[in-house]
């Protein structure tokens, strides 16, 4: 029998290398429904308000410095050169919650600290997200039985992403950040504000 030859080029279409600025933008995958009018040489592109907003938001999240315990040291490690959170545009840790839109709850939330954490969250302007880092913030962790520790920060504020670990490794931390970006990508703030009409 003759050997069957398969022409692989038929199955794998060769991807065009992005060249123009618009194509590059499209290639990031962030603005997925860019209906660029190529015939008109990329002078117009269409998208939804949501996607543009979300893209802007997730590309520069500004966390508030709210290191509470051991995990905060790992937070510093993530922000430093070796792990470099600046790759995700979020190296600017703000001391003031008014200028931040992301909160890492990094560490043990004790009973005494809980109202302060809540206040901090309430002071942040909308839209805002919370990442709970470490077993302590997730559930109380090793201090679950303690009289002075709140068993999970989600008892007082809503949490978007949980990162387990005691403390989570920086890689886990970055993975959590990526998950949050994924989440923000699919949010529909425009619709909420009536901008889709």
């Amino acid at each position, binding site marked *: 029998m003759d050997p069957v030859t398969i022409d692989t080029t038929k199955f794998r279409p060769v991807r065009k290398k992005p060249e123009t600025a618009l194509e590059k933008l499209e290639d990031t995958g962030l603005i997925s429904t860019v209906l660029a009018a190529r015939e008109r040489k990329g002078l117009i592109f269409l998208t939804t308000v949501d996607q543009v907003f979300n893209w802007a938001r997730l590309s520069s999240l500004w966390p508030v410095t709210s290191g509470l315990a051991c995990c905060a040291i790992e937070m510093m490690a993530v922000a430093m050169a070796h792990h470099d959170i600046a790759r995700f545009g979020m190296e600017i840790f703000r001391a003031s919650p008014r200028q931040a839109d992301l909160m890492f709850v990094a560490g043990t939330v004790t009973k*005494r600290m809980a109202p302060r954490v*809540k206040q901090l969250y309430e002071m942040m302007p909308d839209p805002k997200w919370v990442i709970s880092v470490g077993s302590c913030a997730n559930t109380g962790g090793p201090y679950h039985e303690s*009289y*002075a520790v709140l068993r999970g920060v989600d*008892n007082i504020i809503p949490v978007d992403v949980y990162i387990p670990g005691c403390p989570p490794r920086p890689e886990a931390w970055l993975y959590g950040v990526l998950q949050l970006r994924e989440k923000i990508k699919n949010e529909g703030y425009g619709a909420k504000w009536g901008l889709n009409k």
Partner: protein
Amino acid sequence: MNAAEELKQALPASVVSTGMQVEKPLVLVKKEDLLEVAAKVKEMGFDHLSVVTGVDYVDRFEVIYNFFSYGKKENLVLKVVLDHEAPEVGSLTSLWKGADWLERETYDLVGVRFTGHPNLTRILLPEGWKGHPLRKDYDMSVEQFVTIGEDGEDIVSTDGSNLLRRK
């Protein structure tokens, strides 16, 4: 002669017994005479108060002071026994300033009162916390919550409804 025996010779009326705690000389002191003994201890050159420990033995409290002398490089352990109903002992803050917080901490967590302390308030737990956690009869099943009052100070209550999101 170690420091414990020296102390016993100087103040035979106030020292109940002497002994060793691992390798450190240990002196059991009458609680009424603690200040007097402490003054003598300081005179003997023990200038570093390492730690103040309170232990709840259900029928009694013990307060243990660990001293160290920079000059003589010696250790000394003082111990007083207090009764369980009203644990009270003199404060050493006038001799060692470092005793201030250590005693406040012992008051906070164990509930031993130090008479003559300039500011005997809770230090680690907020003012108003019920019970002293390191006592053996501390009730762990009662949840206490803290909220912030008008003036920014802590308010302790067992009702966490304005703090928690869901019941």
